[in-house]
Structures are given as structure tokens and as C-alpha cells.
């Protein structure tokens, strides 16, 4: 174990290297570029004996990973925003073919208008493509999540692709100390992939065939079942990771000071760190508030959310993306999850941090204040003040 100062992007690269990925294919896009550039360096210096395949678009990048994974290789790619949207067709293909690809996503707003900052519209619009989605909160968690993601994706009970989505710039370009496990530690945690259902040299087989409706639906049901097995499998993986590396993240939903809380705010990604500090402040002022961070969004942690719902009166959800005509993306899913809960808290949906607007303590305090005082009224767009200065075009 060594301690390095890493950005979220380098945490992705180091994790992929420690995982001994065999095939990497990617196309550059801001703010993902440094992940792949670092991997290209590892490959060219010989530190990572992998194939680095340069392509002309994200669509090709993911296709390369799909075929390499179908041949049994451990594969990694990374993208962001428009690149992820361009991959859409292949995202379905990767999960339908049950290829255990791990992808780093730097969550960024989508155009138009053009913008580069943190937002969850890119990943949220891919939530039904059959990929597991993990949203780490720190660079340390990025590294740990990528390693867990490989174990999860390749588990023969799962065999699904996983994306590890980090907030643009807040994680991708901000550095912090990160504990980097040794190669021996990672090797013990993550043995080489055991391929199953892949193409084998010397035995001609075909992939991607046509099936009738009856087989089609059976394929889909199996894929859905694999996703249903994720919570339990990931819990076991996390426990093992924790034993070896001394860090865990509390399952699919990580709660903070929710005991005896009247109101709990659900967050994802980096906003959670600030929100935790706000919870501490409010608690010291005598307000009974807590925080729950959705770490894994796919499969949606319905059970965990229902369990939380049974303990509180008011639930708020902060989102960086939304569902038109509904509420925030996560809020909409929380609403669906708690509708079958015996005790249903009042639910508020807050939209903040869209297009990279900062989610500071004042804004989070406003959410808690609303949560404690106002009646829920669907989606509330916060922080809508126009810019103080007109930004330069760029």
C-alpha cells in the first residue's frame, strides 16, 4: 500500500492498471482525457502489458471492448458526456451480450448548449442500458470502486458491465491523497478473469444470433435476474475488499446520522461530502437531519430506500438531472420505490448543480430548510440566479 496524490482520473488509471486490464480502447473527450493518456503511458512504459487500441470514435471504442471481452479479455474504457451518448447503441450491446466491461465515466453535462461541467444527465440517460452504475464520492472511492467493479462484472453470477461515474472536475481534476493498494493485494482480491460463454480458440462458435420472441424474453429475464443479484454479490465483494484494504462504503446506500432524524436528504457523488458537513452543522444546531448517499444507482437500491423511508417523515432528494414531467432522476425512482412502503414519508425533489453550478453549504442548507418547513411540491429548481458576469464564449 502506498499513498499517492491522485486526481479522480488518475485514480481510474491506477485502478485499471492494478486490475491488469488486457485491452483498453477509448476516444478522447474532456474531462476524461487524462485517464486514457495515463493508461497509454503505462502501456508504453511496459508497466501495464495491455493492448491499447486507439479508435476514431466512442462507438468504435466500446465495440472494441465488447469483442475483446467476448474473447475473454479483461477490458476497460472511459468516456464522458457526448461520448457516452454516442455509445448508447453499444451500451445495450455490451450488457445484452453479458460482457463484463468496466468503464470510467466522467459525468458531464450534455449539449446543446455546449458545456463541460459536472452534471448527471449523461449517465442518467443511460440508466436503462443494463449497466451497473456506481457513483463514488472521492478519488479514493473511485479507485476502490473500479477494483470492485471488475470483481462484480466478472462474477459468473453477474456477467454485466459496470460504469464508475465520477463528477467532472470535482473529482476528475481535483487531487487528493489516495491509498493505492499493492499489486499483490489487488491480485489476491481480483484473480484473473474466468471466461465463460466466450469465444474459444479452436472451437468455432458464433455470437449475436437472431432469436424468436420466446427465447428473446428468456434472455432478457436472465439479464434482469443477474442485475437483481448485484446487491448481494456486491455486498460480499465489498466485505472482502474491506477485509483486505480496510475500506468499505456501506453498500448501495451509505447513511450518515440518520438515527432519529426527522428529515433525510439523499444525494449522489461529490455533493454528499458538502452535505455531510451541513448535516453536522445542523445537528449541532439541534436539527434532527441526516444524509443518505446513493452509491449504486443501478440496480436501483429500492430495498434500502424503502427501509430508510420507514424510519423518517421527510425525505428529500438532490439531483443533477431530471425526468421531464416528473421530478429529479433519482427522486422519481425514490418515489417509485417508496410507493409500496408501509410508511411513506413526504418526498421533496431538489434540482441543483446542473451544468456544474456549485452545490455549496448555503444551497444545501436551503434544501434542509425546505425539507423541514415546506410541503413537498414536485420538482424544485434551485439556484437559478443568472451569472454575475457574462461568460466569454469558449
Amino acid at each position, binding site marked *: 500500500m502506498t499513498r499517492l496524490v491522485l486526481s479522480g482520473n488518475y485514480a481510474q488509471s491506477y485502478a485499471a492498471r492494478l486490475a491488469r486490464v488486457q485491452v483498453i480502447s477509448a*476516444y478522447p473527450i474532456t474531462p476524461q482525457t487524462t485517464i486514457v493518456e495515463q493508461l497509454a503511458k503505462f502501456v508504453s512504459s511496459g508497466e501495464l502489458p495491455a493492448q491499447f487500441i486507439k479508435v476514431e470514435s466512442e462507438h468504435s471504442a466500446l465495440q472494441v471492448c465488447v469483442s475483446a471481452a467476448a474473447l475473454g479479455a479483461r477490458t476497460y474504457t472511459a468516456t464522458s458526456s457526448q461520448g457516452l451518448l454516442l455509445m448508447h447503441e453499444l451500451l445495450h450491446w455490451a450488457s445484452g451480450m453479458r460482457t463484463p466491461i468496466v468503464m470510467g465515466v466522467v459525468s458531464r453535462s450534455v449539449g446543446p448548449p455546449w458545456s463541460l461541467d459536472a452534471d448527471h444527465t449523461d449517465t442518467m440517460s443511460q440508466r436503462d442500458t443494463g449497466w451497473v452504475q456506481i457513483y463514488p464520492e472521492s478519488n479514493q472511492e473511485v479507485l476502490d470502486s473500479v477494483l470492485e467493479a471488475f470483481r462484480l462484472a466478472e462474477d459468473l453470477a453477474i456477467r454485466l458491465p459496470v460504469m464508475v461515474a465520477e463528477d467532472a472536475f470535482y473529482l476528475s481534476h481535483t487531487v487528493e491523497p489516495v491509498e493505492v493498494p499493492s499489486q499483490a493485494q489487488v491480485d489476491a482480491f481480483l484473480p484473473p478473469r474466468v471466461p465463460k460463454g466466450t469465444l474459444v480458440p479452436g472451437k468455432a462458435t458464433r455470437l449475436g444470433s437472431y432469436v424468436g420472441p420466446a427465447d428473446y424474453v428468456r434472455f432478457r429475464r436472465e439479464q434482469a435476474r443477474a442485475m437483481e443479484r448485484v446487491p448481494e454479490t456486491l455486498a460480499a465483494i465489498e466485505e472482502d475488499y474491506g477485509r483486505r484494504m480496510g475500506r468499505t462504503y456501506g453498500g448501495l446506500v451509505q447513511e450518515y446520522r440518520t438515527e432519529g432524524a426527522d428529515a433525510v436528504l439523499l444525494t449522489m457523488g461529490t455533493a454528499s461530502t458538502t452535505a455531510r458537513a451541513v448535516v453536522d452543522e445542523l445537528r449541532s444546531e439541534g436539527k434532527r437531519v441526516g444524509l443518505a448517499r446513493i452509491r449504486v444507482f443501478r440496480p436501483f437500491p429500492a430495498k434500502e430506500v424503502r427501509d430508510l423511508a420507514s424510519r423518517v417523515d421527510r425525505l428529500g432528494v438532490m439531483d443533477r438531472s431530471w425526468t421531464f414531467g416528473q421530478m429529479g432522476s433519482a427522486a422519481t425512482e425514490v418515489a417509485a420505490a417508496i410507493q409500496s412502503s408501509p410508511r411513506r414519508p413526504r418526498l421533496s425533489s431538489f434540482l441543483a448543480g446542473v451544468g456544474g453550478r456549485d452545490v455549496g453549504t448555503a444551497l444545501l442548507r436551503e434544501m434542509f430548510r425546505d425539507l423541514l418547513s415546506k410541503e413537498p411540491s414536485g420538482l424544485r429548481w434551485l439556484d437559478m440566479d443568472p451569472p454575475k458576469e457574462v461568460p466569454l464564449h469558449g
Partner: protein
Amino acid sequence: MSLASAPPKTEGPALKVVYKSTTKPTWCPGCGDYGVVASVERALSSLQIPTHDVVVVSGIGCSSNLPHFLSSYGFHGLHGRAMPVAEGVKLANHGLHVVVTGGDGDGWGIGLGHALHAMRRNIDLTYVVMDNEIYGLTTGQASPTSTMGQKTKSTPQGVIEEPVNPIALALSAGATYVARGFSGDPKQLSDLIAGGIKHHGFSLIDVFSPCVTYNHLNTFDFFRQRVYKLENAQHDPTDLVKAFAKAQEFGPKIPTGLFYRAEKPTYEDLEPALKEGPLVHQKAGIRGKDKVLDEFV
């Protein structure tokens, strides 16, 4: 084909049109693209085209920011997808001059398929590619025109792929005006662009437009030492075979200028729906000639 709304050109004083927009370029000081935008302005002004008769469409890249710096209509689209946007604009109103601008990554990489098909259709677009042999905007990865062996952020051990040859590619795909310019020679470049805008059919002007920040191989000096002009070399631009031969020259000497020109019907000429003039000026809707259709709608 007359312009959609251009005033008569024969009468009155010459137009004093300002083609520069109020938006200042955000390119690095010394970037080759400054020479390209200046040449586009010069070409438009030499042809006296009013700004409302020009649409400049681009993809994504440093070069693709160009439409913002002109006072014409502009459409800044998706990475690699400028061409379909431009084709749509042209087919909706083929009285407009449609100029497509972008980079080598945008046009010869992710968007290559679109470029080939637009050329094959000989649709009347003017395609200006700012070829800096690198991905500039994403800070210096190899592009499809990067040189073999070139070390970049994505190729620490050097490029191992043969670069795309845009001129040969356009010649084989069916473009009917194929030229190469150099942003270090704005006079020749603006003439080539003006020639492309005037040309009836698909025109390509591939431009050596150095990225001074991320490409330290294909610099202004690199090109200055190598370029020579086809117009001074007795090249016959109506000869496709000779044009192909010239397109292969890329070493100590690199030709610039017009490689090839041919007169052929454009897509718009052949499309029956456009026979009566630009679509925007035609009446929309079902015209009542389709009895069976009318019966069912």
C-alpha cells in the same frame, strides 16, 4: 441557380459587408486557424455575398469554433456531424451558400463517413478543413492525419497507423473541386475558398493550419519549407489521374492549390423535389394530386 434573396449584383455600389462577428476568437495566439477565418472573410467579401446568404456549419474542435467569429448564419453542431447538418440546410434552401468548417479529427476521423457520402452526392457544399494533424481541443492526441511515428499524448510510442490522405480520398469519393491551402498563405487560401464557393458541386479545401500548442512536428516552418504551388507547376486540374499522382506527393515537396475540378450535376440538380426551386419557397403540405393518399388521410 440564383441566390435565394441576394440583391442584384450588377447595380449600385459594392457591398460593404462586415464578415467579422463581435465574438473574438478564443484560439491560442499564433494558431493557424486565424489565417483560415481571415481567408473565409476575404473570400466572402471578394464574392460580395451578403451575410444572410451564407450558412457556416461546424462540428467540434478548436477549428469548429470558427462560425462564431463570422457574422453569417452559423450552426455549431456535434463532433463529426457537421456534414449532415449542412446537407439538411442545403436541401432546405439550396439558394444559400453553405460552408462547412472543422478539423481533421472531426472530418477525417469520427465524421469521415458523412464526408464521403456528401462528396459522392456532389452536393454543393464548400468544406474547409483546418488540418493540424492533431486533436487540438482535447489537448494533443493523435488524429487520423498525424504522421507515422509521431509521439502524442495518446501515442507515447508513436503513431502506427498510415494517415488519411484527404486529397486522394476526396478525389476517389467524387468531390468535384479538390484543393489544398496553407494558412500561412492567406492570399492563395482565400482564392481557393472563393473558387470553392463559386464552384457548383462539392468542394474540399483541406488546409494546413498548424496547432502551435500541441503539434511541434507540423509547424508553420515545416510547411513553409515544403509547400509549392500547383498553379506554378503546369498542373492540369481537369485531369483526374494527374490529380491523384499529385495527391501522393507528401515529402520534401508538398503541393498546394487546386488539384482537380470537374463540372457535374449536383445532388440538388438531380433531385426532382427541388426542380421548382428551393424547398423553403415551395408550398408545404400535400398537394392534392395523390388521390389514393387523399382518400386515406
